[in-house]
C-alpha cells in the first residue's frame, strides 16, 4: 500500500480513538465508545499488514494468534475484584511492546540521526520501567509479591544513581559511535558500544522499574497504576518518534494525558504529593509512633439482630464500601442487603471515596457487577453533606477514608486527606474483621465515637447473617 494512503488511514484510526474516548465519558455511551476505539485499532492493524515494507508474514500471524488467545483468556476469566492487577498486567505488556519495537529498530539499522537515537533511548527507558513496574504492581495486587512497602537503607540514593547511569548511557547512545568508543575505551568500558550499550540501558530500565514500585504499599496502588498507565502511553508516543509514525504519537499522548489526570486525582484524594507517594514507605514507619501517644479507644459492639432492627427502622442509609468489600467478594450480598432495605422503603445510597479500593473506580465496577444501579453511586463531594441527614452509615471494609483524624488531628499522617464524613451520621456501623489499623498504620478514632458501633466479621458472612435477620423480622 502506498505510504500516503497508509498515513490517511492512520489519521482515521486516530479520529476513532479520540471519538471513542469522548464516548467513554458518559455511562450511556461508554460501551459504544470502547467499540469505536476497537474499530480504530482494527483498521490500523489491517492497514499496516498491507504496508509494502512487510515481506514476511509467518511470525506476524503466529504472534497475532498467540497474543489474541492469551489476551482473550485473561480478559474473559478474570474476576471483577481482580481488575486492578489485570489492568496492571495488560499495561505492562503494552510498555514491553514499546521497549521491544525500539530495540528491534536499533538492531535493524543504527539510527541515522541524534533525535532518533534519543527517541529509542526514551522508548526503552519508559517502556522498560512500565514493563517491570507493572509486573511488580501486578504481583503486589495478586499477592505474589508482598503488599507492604519494601524499604531498605540507601534506597533512594541507589535508585537515583541507577537513573543517572542510565541517562549517561543514553547520552553515549545518542552520540556518534566513534566518539563514544573513544571515550569509553579511555575508561576501560569499550565493550559498551552500540548494541551492547542499548542492551545495558534495557537491563538498567527493567531494574529501575522493579525498584521504584517495590517501596510502594498496597493502598497507594491507585496512584501507581494510574502513573504506569500514563507511562505506557508515553512509551508508545516515544516509539512513534522512533518510527516517524503520527498515530503512535497521537494515541500515546492521549493515554499519557489520561494517566496523568488520574494520577493527579488520586494524589489529591489522599492529600499527598506524587513525590511523597513515589518515595514510598508510607504506613511502615508510623505504626509504632501512634500507639505510644494514643489513648485507649473504647468500642461498642453490635450483634446482627440488633443491627437488623435498627436498619428496619431507618429511612436513610448510606453504604461506604472499601477494599475489604473486594477482598471478601461481598459486592453481591451488599446488593442483596440494598434490595432487602429498599423493600422496607429505606433510601439506600452508596458513597464512593476516590481512592477506595486498589485502582480508580474500583468500587464502582464491583457494585455495577452486582447490578447496583449506577445512579445510586455518589462521589464524595456529592454526598458528604448528606451524612448529617442519614440514620445509619454502614462502612464495609473501609478504614482510612472514614477516619475523622484526617480532619481533627494535625499530627496524624493522614491529616488533611479529604474523607467521607460518616461520623456525622446518627449511627455509624463499621463492618470489619478485627480492630487492626488501616493502611496508614494508625488507629481510627471513629471506632471510639459514641455514635459508632462495630459489627465484627468477614464482610460477606457478616452481611449474609444480617440479611437473614432482616428477613426474619
Amino acid at each position: 500500500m502506498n505510504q500516503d494512503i497508509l498515513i490517511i488511514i492512520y489519521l482515521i484510526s486516530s479520529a476513532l480513538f479520540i471519538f471513542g474516548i469522548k464516548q467513554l465519558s458518559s455511562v450511556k455511551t461508554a460501551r459504544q465508545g470502547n467499540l469505536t476505539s476497537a474499530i480504530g485499532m482494527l483498521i490500523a492493524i489491517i492497514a499496516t499488514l498491507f504496508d509494502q515494507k512487510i515481506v514476511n508474514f509467518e511470525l506476524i500471524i503466529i504472534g497475532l494468534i498467540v497474543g489474541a488467545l492469551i489476551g482473550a483468556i485473561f480478559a474473559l476469566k478474570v474476576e471483577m475484584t481482580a481488575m486492578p492487577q489485570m489492568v496492571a498486567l495488560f499495561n505492562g505488556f503494552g510498555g514491553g511492546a514499546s521497549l521491544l519495537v525500539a530495540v528491534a529498530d536499533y538492531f535493524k539499522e543504527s539510527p541515522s540521526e541524534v533525535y532518533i537515537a534519543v527517541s529509542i533511548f526514551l522508548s526503552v527507558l519508559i517502556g522498560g520501567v512500565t514493563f517491570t513496574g507493572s509486573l511488580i504492581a501486578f504481583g503486589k495486587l495478586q499477592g505474589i509479591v508482598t503488599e507492604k512497602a519494601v524499604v531498605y537503607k540507601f534506597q533512594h540514593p541507589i535508585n537515583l544513581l541507577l537513573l543517572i547511569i542510565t541517562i549517561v548511557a543514553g547520552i553515549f547512545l545518542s552520540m556518534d559511535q566513534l566518539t563514544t568508543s573513544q571515550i569509553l575505551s579511555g575508561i576501560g568500558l569499550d565493550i559498551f558500544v552500540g548494541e551492547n550499550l542499548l542492551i545495558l540501558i534495557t537491563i538498567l530500565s527493567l531494574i529501575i522499574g522493579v525498584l521504584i514500585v517495590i517501596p510502594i504499599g498496597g493502598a497507594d496502588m491507585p496512584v501507581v497504576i494510574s502513573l504506569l498507565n500514563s507511562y505506557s502511553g508515553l512509551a508508545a508516543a516515544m516509539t512513534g518518534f522512533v518510527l516517524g509514525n503520527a498515530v503512535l504519537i497521537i494515541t500515546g499522548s492521549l493515554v499519557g494525558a489520561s494517566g496523568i489526570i488520574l494520577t493527579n486525582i488520586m494524589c489529591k484524594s489522599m492529600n499527598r504529593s506524587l513525590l511523597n507517594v513515589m518515595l514510598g514507605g508510607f504506613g511502615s514507619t508510623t505504626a509504632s509512633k501512634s500507639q505510644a501517644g494514643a489513648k485507649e479507644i473504647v468500642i461498642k459492639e453490635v450483634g446482627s439482630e440488633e443491627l437488623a432492627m435498627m436498619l428496619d427502622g431507618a429511612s436513610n442509609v448510606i453504604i461506604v464500601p472499601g477494599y475489604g468489600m473486594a477482598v471478601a467478594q461481598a459486592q453481591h450480598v451488599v446488593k442483596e442487603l440494598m434490595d432487602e432495605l429498599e423493600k422496607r422503603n429505606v433510601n439506600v445510597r452508596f458513597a464512593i471515596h476516590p481512592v477506595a479500593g486498589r485502582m480508580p473506580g474500583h468500587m464502582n465496577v464491583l457494585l455495577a457487577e452486582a447490578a447496583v444501579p449506577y445512579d445510586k453511586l455518589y462521589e464524595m463531594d456529592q454526598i458528604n453533606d448528606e451524612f448529617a441527614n442519614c440514620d445509619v452509615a454502614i462502612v464495609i471494609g473501609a478504614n482510612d477514608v472514614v477516619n475523622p483524624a484526617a480532619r481533627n488531628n494535625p499530627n496524624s499522617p493522614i491529616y488533611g486527606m479529604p474523607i467521607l464524613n460518616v461520623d456525622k451520621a446518627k449511627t455509624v456501623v463499621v463492618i470489619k474483621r478485627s480492630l487492626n489499623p488501616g493502611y496508614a498504620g494508625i488507629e481510627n478514632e471513629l471506632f471510639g465515637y459514641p455514635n459508632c458501633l462495630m459489627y465484627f466479621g468477614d464482610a460477606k458472612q457478616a452481611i449474609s447473617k444480617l440479611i437473614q435477620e432482616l428477613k426474619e423480622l
Partner: protein
Amino acid sequence: MTFHELILLFTVFVLSIFLGFELISKVPPILHTPLMSGSNAISGITIVGSLVSAGSSLDVNVNLFGYQTSVSSLLGFIAIIFATINVVGGYLVTDRMTRMFKKK
C-alpha cells in the same frame, strides 16, 4: 525522518497532550476503571510498529530451532504477542465492565 518532520511530529505530540487533558477531565469518577482499561488497550497501538519490525527485515542472523530469521524480526515477534495481549485483553475487559453499568 528529517528534522523538519521531527518538528511536525513534535507539534502533533504537544497538541495531542492538550487534547487528551480536555477529553479526559470530563470523564466522571464512576467510569475511571473502564477509562483506564480502555485507554490501556489504546496504548497497545505500538502493535503497528511491532508488525513492521517482525515482518520487514530481510537479514538472516538468527537460527531458532531451524527457523532462519533476524534479531529485529524476533524482537518484533515478541512485541506483537505483548501488544496483542494488551489490545485484545484491554478491549474485551473494558467491554465486560461497560456493559455492567445499568440505570435502574
